[in-house]
């Protein structure tokens, strides 16, 4: 999958799960510090990404991803072009 498409989908899912508009989300944003994702929201986000990308993620690894950019890189590695 192309990295641009992954980035678009990561932002869309993040906006939906954290109940905010997509244009508020920047690539360098930290899910917890900038976007307010608490520990429960973080797990819900991972669950939403699993659904979006139809993946069964390694939970501990997925929860180590802290930023929007980091998530894009993480999925780009799992979903090569």
């Amino acid at each position, binding site marked *: 999958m192309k990295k641009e498409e992954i980035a678009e989908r990561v932002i869309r899912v993040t906006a939906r799960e954290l109940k905010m508009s997509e244009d508020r989300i920047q690539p360098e944003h930290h899910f917890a510090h900038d976007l307010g994702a608490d*520990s*429960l929201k973080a*797990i819900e986000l*991972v*669950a939403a990404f699993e659904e979006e990308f139809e993946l069964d993620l390694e939970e501990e690894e997925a929860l180590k991803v802290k930023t929007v950019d980091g998530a894009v890189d993480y999925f780009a590695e799992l979903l090569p072009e």
Partner: protein
Amino acid sequence: MELRPLEHVQEPNLIKEIFPHSIPPLIRFEDRIRETIDGEEVEFDPRSMIDRDIHITDTTFRDGQQSRPPYTRKQMTRIFSMLSKLGGTQGVIRQTEFFLYTKNDRDTIDACRNLGLRYPEITGWIRANIGDFRLVKEMGLKESGLLTSCSDFHIFHKQKQTRQQAMDQYLEVVEAALEAGVRPRCHLEDVTRADLRGFVIPFVQRLERLTENQSDHLRVKIRLCDTMGFGLSFPNVAEPRSIPKLIWRMKEECGISGDRLEWHGHNDFHKVHINGATAWIYGVDAVNTTLFGFGERTGNPPLEGAVMEYIALKGDLCGIDLSVITELAEYFQRDVGASIPANYPFAGRDFNTTRAGIHAGGLRSNEEIYTIFDTRELLGRPPRVAITDKSGTDGVALWVNEFLGLEGDKRLSLTKVVKIQRWVMNQYEKEGRLTAISEEELEEQVELHFPELYAQARSRRK
């Protein structure tokens, strides 16, 4: 202060020689214990415990029954057989004592004897008068406890006797026991509030003199009864509350060996279990207990606690079947109608249930982090979580996986159960709930989100 360097290790040091997890954690002594008695330092060596024949005696049917309505014969027979299975064939639970006063008491002894079990041995309990001794003889028992109260509170205020009259009466009954070939076990009632030098020691010396030439099976036994729970385990406590000093005087001044000494405690000051363990450590071989600590007022040393202490001191299960504790707890609550507090160690509903999310997280990654030993294997009780707003997604994952009986790779991850956790949090944040989530509610959620797994689990349980 010299700073110790941090030790870098490749593998964690889990101190397995003390916390093996496969059995309860062990108690290891490194040296002798010292006590000052009459200005002299004396020593006790707790390391001798490994070789000593320490054991548990039971008074569930005597003191235990004084705190509740009488058990039926069927109940007592069932409990007796479970005690036998729990204590195993090495006789860790060596004896249990019965009242002899009613027909039901005597018929129950016959029913238990007819089970043909080696342990626990059946002994009796009577008040110290000749008339009552007839009951022991009629039942053909080899040993009986005799109530020999020894504080002046009892002698003067209850029995309205002088010390001489009390001692003469007690000795007369002991002589009758010996004539009938029954081993006397004198229960020194209220000994932790008694005048040791003025009554207890003279009395026990005379008892010893009376039986010192008898064969071993008739030599007097002494039960040290901490009737009001006044006994203290600490070193160098003043008499008569000092357990170490009391034991030392029984052995050194009265000649009563450890195999003829027994401790009987009460829990009025929350010291009942540790006082029993202390008696073991300082040289008494038998600790008298009741199941779940049921007994007069605040109760007696809990038998289950003594069993755990025994394993910890011996470093081995010694034939003990700990799963019977779970059977007994279920039986007492379901059939006997007794109430065991939810947080009661080893047997209460929640004894290994965590409500804290951080603990549930630990349990999920490695059960040993938040379990006292392998309660799943030894007691048939896997660690559990109770779900509240504090238990977290880890708690929900643990509960759901346990409920569904999923193991290894099949266990559901946090992301799979997070919808249930969101429902839980909404209960508190949006609905204003203040109570824990019930198991029935959680089952409904599992059925909603994992219908196939739920159906499989239900059919397995049927």
